[in-house]
């Protein structure tokens, strides 16, 4: 056994600062005679995809802007690749890893195919435990229900832990519109909230930010020194700014990693203990739960707990695995079970298994496109490979470009702890979008022409007979928009003297 590495929040990990001055093991940022030389302004943070009315999100455009900020792109790629490597190390420590994945996938598939039964069991057990259970068919209903609960208690402020479901619901903007203060307690999510930006990753929401970006946000919002981007300083300042808000909050909210049917309890996994603060400091606890989070038994949880953090961050387990079963004395607990399209997805033959997702983010960490694009380039709640197959179920038109933001390399499916065939579903979504006429006309015309040319040998031969005509035709039929996009950032292939076909005719023609 090797000693565990000191735990530092992965979003704040950064490469060593060569200019840092360290004395007696402590870093001196403002010591007299140790001030840093003046430096040029740090690279500004590239922002995410831009919305243009009803036009589909242009992921490629936003990704290009991310890459045009090399300090961000390199940091992002390396930081997430580091998580992927740590995941691999953890995997190699467990002989039955592949068996665990099989088991996790089977449990999830079992639960999803009997979702109605398990949800009713969960509801009945939760009620027995003294929990109020609500059902929301969509995001608007979720937000109204939560608002209603808060009104009943006269609550004006809410602290919450991170929840992708509440991102789906546009929860913070809704609460702002009804005059309720929401404070995110997860560090990364808080950074994003203060910067008025969506999370870019399901586990590490601010992973696309350099610490200089965080310093800029905190300087603007909580009054830190704009020139101090020391991670410990920033983390401490944020804690000091947020703790009083936590202590004064009227209500607390968490998401849910697993909802256990046989106990009627919800399980929340965090590294900062912030879910416990959110749930336990105020007397009112509301948990927002996607209906696909159901697992049948407490025993099943063991399988997922072994997989979740290893897949997500390459750590054996999250620092906190908190079980919430019922309200404490004098308190109240509410579960809001949210559908928001999940029942419809369950009915989609090719895509229903995407509901197995446990939101570990391993597919994002391994995805070479995601690592170089940044999560905000997807312009959707869910980014990366899992986003490519979930987002179009919410809006096939708006997210019609996303399934094309993939090389179909398949690494995502291999790291997925619940064995979702992500890359095959990306491929299936491309077919589905063509069927629904959700691809641009130019591409449709080009592909039709390609199909014509490639099915007529004589026309095909004429098109690529000579090297220069091959250069003109081949990329155009293989790749619909020709040499422009090929040659902008890389050289075109060097045309040979003759095609293989020509060589064969000349050298082996008699054999044919």
């Amino acid at each position: 056994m090797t000693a565990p590495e000191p735990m530092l929040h992965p979003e704040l990990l950064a490469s060593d600062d060569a200019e840092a001055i360290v004395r007696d093991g402590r870093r001196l940022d403002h010591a007299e005679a140790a001030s840093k030389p003046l430096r040029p302004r740090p690279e500004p943070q590239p922002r995410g995809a831009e919305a243009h009315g009803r036009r589909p999100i242009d992921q490629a455009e936003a990704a290009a802007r991310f890459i045009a900020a090399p300090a961000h792109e390199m940091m992002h790629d390396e930081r997430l690749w580091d998580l992927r490597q740590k995941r691999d190390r953890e995997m190699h420590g467990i002989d039955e890893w592949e068996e665990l994945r099989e088991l996790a996938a089977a449990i999830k598939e079992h639960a999803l195919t009997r979702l109605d039964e398990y949800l009713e069991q969960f509801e009945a057990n939760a009620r027995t435990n003294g929990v109020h259970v609500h059902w929301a068919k969509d995001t608007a209903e979720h937000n109204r229900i939560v608002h209603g609960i808060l009104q009943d208690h006269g609550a004006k402020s809410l602290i919450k832990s991170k929840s992708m479901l509440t991102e789906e619901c546009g929860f913070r903007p809704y609460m702002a519109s009804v005059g309720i203060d929401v404070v995110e307690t997860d560090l990364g999510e808080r950074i994003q909230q203060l910067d008025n930006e969506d999370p870019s990753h399901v586990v590490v929401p601010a992973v696309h930010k350099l610490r200089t970006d965080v310093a800029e946000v905190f300087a603007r919002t909580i009054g830190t020194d704009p020139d101090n981007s020391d991670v410990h300083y920033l983390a401490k300042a944020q804690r000091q700014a947020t703790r009083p808000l936590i202590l004064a909050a009227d209500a607390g909210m968490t998401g849910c990693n697993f909802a256990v049917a046989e106990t009627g309890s919800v399980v929340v996994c965090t590294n900062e203990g912030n879910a416990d603060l959110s749930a336990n400091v105020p007397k009112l606890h509301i948990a927002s739960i996607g209906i696909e989070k159901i697992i049948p038994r407490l025993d099943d949880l063991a399988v997922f707990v072994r997989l979740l953090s290893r897949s997500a961050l390459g750590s054996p387990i999250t620092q906190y695995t908190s079980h919430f079963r019922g309200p404490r004395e004098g308190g109240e607990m509410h579960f809001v079970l949210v559908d928001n399209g999940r029942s419809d997805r369950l009915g989609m033959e090719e895509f229903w298994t995407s509901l197995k997702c446990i939101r570990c983010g391993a597919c994002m960490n391994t995805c070479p496109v995601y690592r170089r694009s940044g999560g905000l380039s997807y312009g959707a709640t869910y980014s990366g490979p899992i986003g490519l197959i979930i987002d179009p179920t919410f809006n096939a038109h708006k997210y019609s470009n996303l399934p094309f933001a993939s090389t179909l390399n398949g690494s995502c499916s291999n790291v997925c702890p619940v064995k979702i065939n992500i890359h095959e579903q990306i491929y299936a979504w491309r077919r589905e979008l063509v069927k629904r006429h959700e691809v641009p006309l130019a591409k449709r015309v080009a592909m039709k022409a390609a199909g014509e040319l490639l099915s007529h040998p004589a026309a095909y031969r004429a098109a690529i007979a000579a090297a220069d005509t091959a250069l003109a035709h081949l990329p155009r039929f293989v790749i619909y928009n020709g040499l422009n996009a090929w040659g902008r950032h890389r050289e075109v292939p060097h045309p040979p003297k003759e095609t293989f076909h020509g060589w064969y005719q000349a050298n082996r023609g008699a054999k044919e």
Partner: protein
Amino acid sequence: MRIGLFIPCYIDAFFPEVGVATLELLERLGHEVIYPGDQTCCAQPMANSGFNAECADTEALFVRNFAGFDYVVAPSGSCVHHVRDNFDAIEQTAEVREVRARTYELVEFLHDILKVEAFPWARFPHRVGLHNSCGTLRRLKHATPSELHEPFYSKPLDVLSKVEGIEFVTPARPDECCGFGGTFSVFEEVVSTEMGYDKVSDHARAGAEYIVSADSSCLMHQQGCAERIGVPIKFIHIAQILNGASA
């Protein structure tokens, strides 16, 4: 054994030497190799973009060209992946299923079917970095992908190890995608080329003189990227090394 030689469109037009090496190699190994003259493509370019209906006529043409051979062999993992795993725009008659099942990528054909023990004519005294394309690695299962907890194996390394003088270097991210991805290479050209730059730089840092692969399409993309950013590295298809190319 009658082998139908499938030379995909990219190789036909831009890398004829790869087709020639594949043909000569299979002939050296004592097999009758026939190149059906009316072949064009496997239909992957349309399929990869979601246009399955547009694949039908090209897939039918492929079957007309390659029905009746003992094996169909191609020096391209991604095309073989399409034929074997996604070639479903046409009715799956017994003949279609037969052609699909008999289609092999060159390395797996040498390794699994012919079980070739030696390439006495081959000598390649160079440091090479092996690039397993994602199609060969994760679909055709040429080797253990780094994501899975499986005993290590690698068909391309097994085969290449039989070449005299060859020396392998290992990049830091051995099975990271190079960013070609078919239509992705132009649909997301900035991300695609960024991935390509990273890939060729990784091999160069590991000390590779050559990047060797069973897929010319990845090599074409990587070569374009290397030339653009000035990484002095050469590219060669595995068929050429096995057929005795000296450099």
